[in-house]
């Protein structure tokens, strides 16, 4: 399986994502934001970081960059696009995903492990994943997901909520919501479920000794579903 990670000026999780994808068997290539096209890929990843210094709004400048038209075309033709953290913010700014990531409710940059509950398995990312609750890492200042009531209704009606913040037992109450995101949303799909945006970083949880391996479960599972 071939993957492509897009690098924007200010991306800083691109190499971590490259390491993770290669570890689980993807043939990954790194694509510069100013390129015109993306080589044939089974998966495109928009990595975390601070693309264009988070100027204007997080992800807004990247969502108009030269390479992004190819990403949108790929997504619209059914290709898998994963946006993590700043990648999620970029996906909302392109309009591929509804809503927006606002500043965290308590104005603090949050960098810690969280638990998320997998809410939908009828998709390539989470089908047959071995755990329903994953321990992943978040590191963001703007992860407070917000959308209009109509968009929320449509997300719920089509099972587009991918993962929600919870505790290790799956409790989704307010105290387990790190950033104020509406309905504890940590990640969502588009309505065809080929585009996934999420704040937690699976690529940071792929080492038994350093971090735990719930990110490994995510990548192994995705690769298995693509084969």
């Amino acid at each position, binding site marked *: 399986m071939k993957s492509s990670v897009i690098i924007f000026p200010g991306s800083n999780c691109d190499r971590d994502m490259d390491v993770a994808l290669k570890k689980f068997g993807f043939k990954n290539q790194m694509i510069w934001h100013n390129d015109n096209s993306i080589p044939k890929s089974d998966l495109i990843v928009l990595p975390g970081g601070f693309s264009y210094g988070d100027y*204007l*709004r997080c992800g*807004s400048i990247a969502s*108009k960059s030269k390479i992004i038209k190819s990403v949108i075309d790929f997504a619209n033709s059914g290709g898998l696009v994963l946006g993590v953290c700043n990648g999620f913010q970029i996906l909302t*700014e392109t309009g591929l995903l*509804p*809503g*927006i990531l*606002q*500043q*965290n*409710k*308590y*104005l603090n940059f949050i960098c810690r492990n969280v638990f998320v509950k997998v809410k939908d398995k009828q998709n390539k990312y989470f089908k047959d994943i071995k755990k329903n609750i994953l321990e992943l890492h978040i590191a963001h200042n703007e992860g*407070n997901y*917000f*959308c*209009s009531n109509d*968009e929320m209704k449509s997300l719920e009606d089509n099972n587009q909520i991918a993962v929600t913040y919870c505790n290790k037992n799956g409790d989704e109450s307010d105290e387990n919501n790190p950033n*104020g995101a509406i309905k504890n949303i940590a990640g969502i799909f588009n309505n065809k479920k080929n585009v996934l945006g999420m704040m937690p970083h699976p690529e940071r949880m792929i080492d038994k000794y350093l971090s735990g391996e719930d990110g490994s479960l995510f990548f192994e599972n995705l690769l298995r579903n693509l084969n």
Partner: protein
Amino acid sequence: MIIKVIVTLKNGVLDPQGKAIQQTLNGMNFSSVNDVRQGKFFEINVNENDETKAKLQVEDMCKKLLANLVIEDYKIL
């Protein structure tokens, strides 16, 4: 000509920075402050002499880039 734009959060959208500023002002004994909303201000120099045409262009810019209409409103001054 220079066109000025203000982008603000829509009413009802949580503005944590505005809230923090309000609480700080209250703490500084500006007890009359009930609410603060923070926004962005742009001065856009457009190569256009006709004000109506310039503002039309800026409106398009607001919709496509300067404001995210999910949570923000824009006002062209």
